[in-house]
């Protein structure tokens, strides 16, 4: 079967629910998020993208790493992630973010078992975009509306049907097992189809290579001060970002139960780097905003060969003061990039 009819998706997901924890776009109190579904028809197929990213599927906002109870000296490690999971309906940008998270958390020097276990038991079925939002800039960071990076299967949206592209060996196994045979081999997503023309429609505000080169020279640029002036220093951009992964580790104890939790953290918070002595290497919003941009578009490229941004645009659309990262990038990349 080369294509899946749109109205078949519900049944496909129902079939998966027996063996997998299935995450799909759903509306919770009016807000689109990825959450576990209990029946296939819960999944929303008509959407641009979710308010929060699907990264919580692999890295929950709060998770218990270790715990112990009472007088028992034994420590539980909570590394078992339970049932294998399927993430259905991720956009290509969000799937690509997993590729980035893999580099940092799974494939680096120390394998983060909590992330790695979830990742290794997750199958990602993404759906290519037909209609970019005004905040999308995936093409800037190397992705695109039909990018299959980070996905196991990419569904290309042809209106009433989806065309299935297998993007990994696990995706191939899964497709074979569920009758989604890929017959698009050798045919890249978008060839001769309605999505083909979309990629150029998302015009990159900067060239990533030129931006990186410009940032290498810009640590002390006075621009940081003016760019970050309106930033409130909240964590919206970090917490909605599919690629941000910085975290804190906090212990708690009550009624004889002791836990060590991992919780999301943000480089935009002053306490992120404040030392017990009171010294803070990033004392103001200027240094903290610079860190955010430098980390994503400079250090990550050096360390992981990939920007720590996939251009999903959530930070752009949800910033309460409309601090548009694309403008910030353009201020460096555009000015110095030789445009």
């Amino acid at each position, binding site marked *: 079967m080369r294509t899946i009819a749109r109205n078949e998706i519900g049944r496909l997901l129902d079939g998966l629910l027996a063996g997998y924890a299935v995450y799909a776009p759903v509306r919770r109190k009016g807000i689109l998020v990825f959450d576990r579904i209990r029946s296939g028809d819960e999944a929303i197929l008509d959407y641009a993208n979710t308010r929060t990213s699907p990264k919580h599927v692999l890295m929950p906002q709060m998770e*218990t790493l270790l*715990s112990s109870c009472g007088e028992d000296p034994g420590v539980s490690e*909570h590394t078992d992630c339970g049932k294998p999971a399927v993430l259905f309906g991720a956009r290509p940008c969000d799937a690509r973010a997993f590729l980035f998270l893999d580099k940092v958390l799974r494939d680096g020097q120390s394998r983060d078992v909590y992330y790695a276990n979830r990742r290794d038991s997750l199958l990602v079925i993404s759906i290519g975009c037909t209609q970019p939002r005004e905040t999308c800039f995936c093409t800037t960071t190397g992705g695109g509306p039909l990018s299959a990076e980070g996905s196991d299967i990419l569904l290309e949206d042809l209106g009433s049907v989806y065309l299935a592209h297998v993007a990994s060996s696990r995706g191939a196994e899964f497709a074979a097992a569920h009758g989604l045979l890929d017959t698009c081999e050798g045919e890249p997503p978008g060839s001769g189809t309605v999505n083909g023309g979309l990629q150029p429609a998302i015009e990159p505000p900067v060239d990533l290579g030129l931006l990186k080169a410009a940032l290498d020279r810009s640590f002390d640029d006075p621009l940081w001060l003016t760019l970050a002036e309106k930033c409130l220093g909240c964590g919206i951009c970090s917490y909605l970002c599919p690629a941000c992964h910085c975290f804190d580790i906090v212990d*708690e104890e*009550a*009624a004889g*139960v002791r*836990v060590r939790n991992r919780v999301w953290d943000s480089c935009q918070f002053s306490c992120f780097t404040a030392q017990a002595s009171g010294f803070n290497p990033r004392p103001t919003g200027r240094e903290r905003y610079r860190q955010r941009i430098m980390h994503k578009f400079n250090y990550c490229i050096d360390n992981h060969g990939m920007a720590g941004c996939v251009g999903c645009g959530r930070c752009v659309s949800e910033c309460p003061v409309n601090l548009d990262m694309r403008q910030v990038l353009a201020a460096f990349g555009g000015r110095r990039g030789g445009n």
Partner: protein
Amino acid sequence: MDGEMNDRVPGWEPRIVAFLCNWCSYAGADSAGVGRLQYPAAVRVIRVPCAGRINPFFILSAFQKGADGVLVSGCHPGDCHYISGNYSARRKFALLKGLLEHIGIEEGRLQFTWVSASEGERFASVIDTVTEKVLALGPARRMEKRYT
């Protein structure tokens, strides 16, 4: 109606945290003891210098840690050892009580009162009333923090 209303949870003993000011209410509790007045044993007393010392966080923390009820008691108006600590506190208490009830914490979980050093009997009857009310409400689960 209220899902939490349950006065017959097997094996449940209410836990009530009482913040008592050092100068009046704590002494009032003392005089209840000296007078050998009977009152329920559900109360854990925390002595504070003054009702004005109570940070709303103390109260929220008590609920988070599983208190079924919280009582705060200070000196009667005009009798504060620090002149006006209880007057300032009264404004905070009024707002906090209203806010907790507004969000659906049952009326009766959080109580404020005045007890003077000589009012052993009043103290005993305050504890009676508070305990009775909490017993009727059953265990408080809404604000309790649960650990894995």
